[in-house]
């Protein structure tokens, strides 16, 4: 599950209203949602983000509404993984269920800056900054969550399980 990409860095308490504003909740198509991602926080994000890029944030990323579009739009925009000091619980679940990798890493803010290149491995928690050589260790997610992520999200995971049963 190794990812590498360029860092987009944000602060604490990034809420789902700025990740995906309420006025767009009627938009369901992932490709359209990708263009609206982060609009109220960083208008440049949707234009600049490339496939595989990485969001680095402070505490309590994804707080606020339960709208899973906040995870869907980031995944559709190409984000491979969100690394934060901590997550709000509903966003944490939504990301896993939609197959968007997340990593909880309390030191991430001190080793990565916007524009740096990172290489990360969620299954071991390893975070390596290819730009400045610094490393950090993220918490490793429980095996059943890694399995859901590995399957691409909850729906493909359930389909796989049901096919086996």
């Amino acid at each position, binding site marked *: 599950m190794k990812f590498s990409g360029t860092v987009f860095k944000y602060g604490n*308490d990034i*809420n789902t*209203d*700025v990740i995906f*504003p*309420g*006025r767009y*909740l*009627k*938009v*369901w198509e992932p490709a359209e949602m990708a263009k609206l991602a982060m609009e*109220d*926080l960083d208008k440049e994000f949707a234009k600049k983000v490339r496939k595989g890029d990485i969001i680095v944030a402070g*505490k*309590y990323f994804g*707080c*606020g*509404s*339960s*709208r*899973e579009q906040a*995870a869907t739009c980031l995944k559709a925009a190409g984000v491979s993984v969100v690394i934060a000091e*901590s997550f*709000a*619980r*509903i966003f944490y*679940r*939504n990301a896993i*269920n*939609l197959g968007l990798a997340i990593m909880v890493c309390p030191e991430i803010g001190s080793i990565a800056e916007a524009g740096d290149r990172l290489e990360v491995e969620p299954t071991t928690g390893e975070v390596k900054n290819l730009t400045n050589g610094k490393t950090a260790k993220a918490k490793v997610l*429980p095996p*059943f969550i890694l399995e859901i992520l590995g399957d691409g*999200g*909850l*729906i493909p995971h*359930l*389909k796989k399980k*049901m096919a086996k049963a």
Partner: protein
Amino acid sequence: MGKTMAEKILAKAAGVKEASPGDLLDVYPHVAMSHENAGLVSKSFKEIGTGKLYDPDRIVIIFDHRVPAETEKTAEGHKTVREFVKKHGIKNFFDINTGICHQVLPEQGFCRPGEVLVGTDSHTTTHGAFGVFSTGIGATEMAAVWATGKLWLMVPETIKVVVKGKFKPGVYSKDLILHLIGKLRADGADYKSIEFFGQAIDEMTIASRMVLTNLSMEAGAKSAMIPPDQKTVDYVKSVTNKPFEVIKPDPDAHYCQTVEIDLDQLTPQIACPHAVDNVKPLSELAGTVINQALIGSCTNGRLEDLEEGARQLKGRKVHPEVRMLVIPASWKVYRQALDKGLIAAYIDAGAVVLNPGCGPCLGAHQGLMAPGERCISSTNRNFQGRMGSTQSEVYLASPAAVVASAVAGMITLPEVK
């Protein structure tokens, strides 16, 4: 050692003898609620491919976020859900003429003590006011609940909130919970449950208790509960014939943190832009000019809120440069407000009364703001861009403070006589 409400209720719903914080349980919720996002849920449900709902009677769908449809796209979404409901025989469907999900659920008897309720809305914590373990989840996860009847939940630690003293005039449960959020901060209860105790809680109306559990979400709470008492049981029995078992915390339950709040010291509070935990005494903001004032939402759109607001009017008009919006939380509340003459009082004062629904609270429908504008609101979030322009501002306060401010044209303390 004794157990908290969350530990006891989740253990029961998972069919295990006991549960402790950190345990991962497969829980079978008694109620699974969605609003307009039932459209997204049904899309994911179709992808799962079983085509069969685990139990259609546990599913509740209530339209409230964009009612009536404000765009063709929303109308299409509504239509998709109505068709799904018909096809799958979901009888607990409430269309655009019912109200906000968190008000309609208790009114229709879906909040029963001791049960587990999940909803695709973050403010699902509201139903803890009835001793229900209730929590918000996403649409994809709800699709899995529709198909399999269950979801995994980690048993949370619990924060004990002890409320002492008595409310001073002009101070309400909204001020209490804003103060608590300011104290705990936005993530102070992330992954945790909250339980409320104290004489003031015992004496509180059901509606005021719902304000506490609703807004606990803004401190990050996974669930927030008030141990059921006779008032709870009487209310629930008045709306449902279904049996339920009251589950209370053990006296020796273990809490990860205890927070005490002294109501004798509490003054009207206000949450300033752009975070709900940016809470200050309202008096510090007095004199701040406003353009809009709003009473409504799942937080403070109930009958007692409309009553408290109307009491502030005293025959006066809304300030000519303020747009005042009034949104009853449900059709039932709307009807009662009509009978009590409250709607007439607001209309006579120059307010605009909108149909029950989430309205402008989440910036999706009606009453939005232009750049540079400011609103005082009885709603639940004040994030940047929440109610329109990212250059506008939302201040959160009690319904009484909202109406007092609407009349004055600026943020004002509620009048206490």
